[in-house]
């Protein structure tokens, strides 16, 4: 998997990515996943990342991009067929 833009988050990111890939291929794709089991690890990674994004001044740019994405959510969150 690739690195984080914040090197200080690389370790926790790698642990989360590993958990996610396993959950994704072994549970989610087999339609047996009921919850996101990697959520606790993600929260740790997210704490590190949020701080890094703020320090780099990227957080506002992200809020704007998210606002632009509302149409995609409306279209692709509906199940197909």
């Amino acid at each position, binding site marked *: 998997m690739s*690195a984080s833009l914040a090197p200080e988050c690389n370790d926790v*990111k790698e642990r989360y990515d590993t958990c996610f890939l396993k959950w994704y291929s072994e549970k989610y794709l087999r339609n047996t996943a009921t919850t996101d089991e990697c959520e606790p690890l993600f929260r740790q990674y997210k704490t590190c990342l949020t701080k890094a994004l703020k320090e780099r001044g990227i957080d506002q740019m*992200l809020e704007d*991009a998210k606002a632009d994405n509302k149409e995609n959510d409306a279209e692709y969150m*509906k199940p197909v067929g």
Partner: protein
Amino acid sequence: MRIFASQHEFAYSWEEVSTNNWRKYCAHNDKASHVLAVDTLSRSLDATTHILRTERLITCRQSMPQWVKRIMGSDDTSYVYEVSYVDAQAKRVTMCSQNMTWSELLQVQEKVVYTPSVEAEGHTRFEQSARIIALCGGWQKIKNSIEEISLERFRQNAAKGREGFERVLEISRQVFAQQREEARQQREGVAA
């Protein structure tokens, strides 16, 4: 405005493709050296539809012509915001991304869809489309040139992207086969 559209078939199952899609920008992929980092911003599983929604931030660095740098500013680092939707029941991955950096000057919006191939079983169809619009005020000629350069760069990246992803899929399959073989040998070693 410039439009880009392409299709491709990967000779790998939808499950393999959608799994390796998350690892596309890994160290094995030397075609993706322009991608410096990939960070997951959010991930949620819809309880009713089981659609997996993920937001990611992709950090890139690409060289560009001097005159473009003068107009856009000389920092080579750019950020892309991507939202993806995986519907495991319908077997469909949809990825929507847009540039964040220089977005007041140039808008590049990309959509990628992975679905099982209808032509060949065990294969995956890949459809990619993009819209490139130069928003900067100024002469139409400059806007056209910026759009053309962006389109050409997008096309090159798209071709590299497919090659790089093919390599990631190939390595992943080899590793998986090796792991299965080792597991089989262990079982037979124990049984013997």
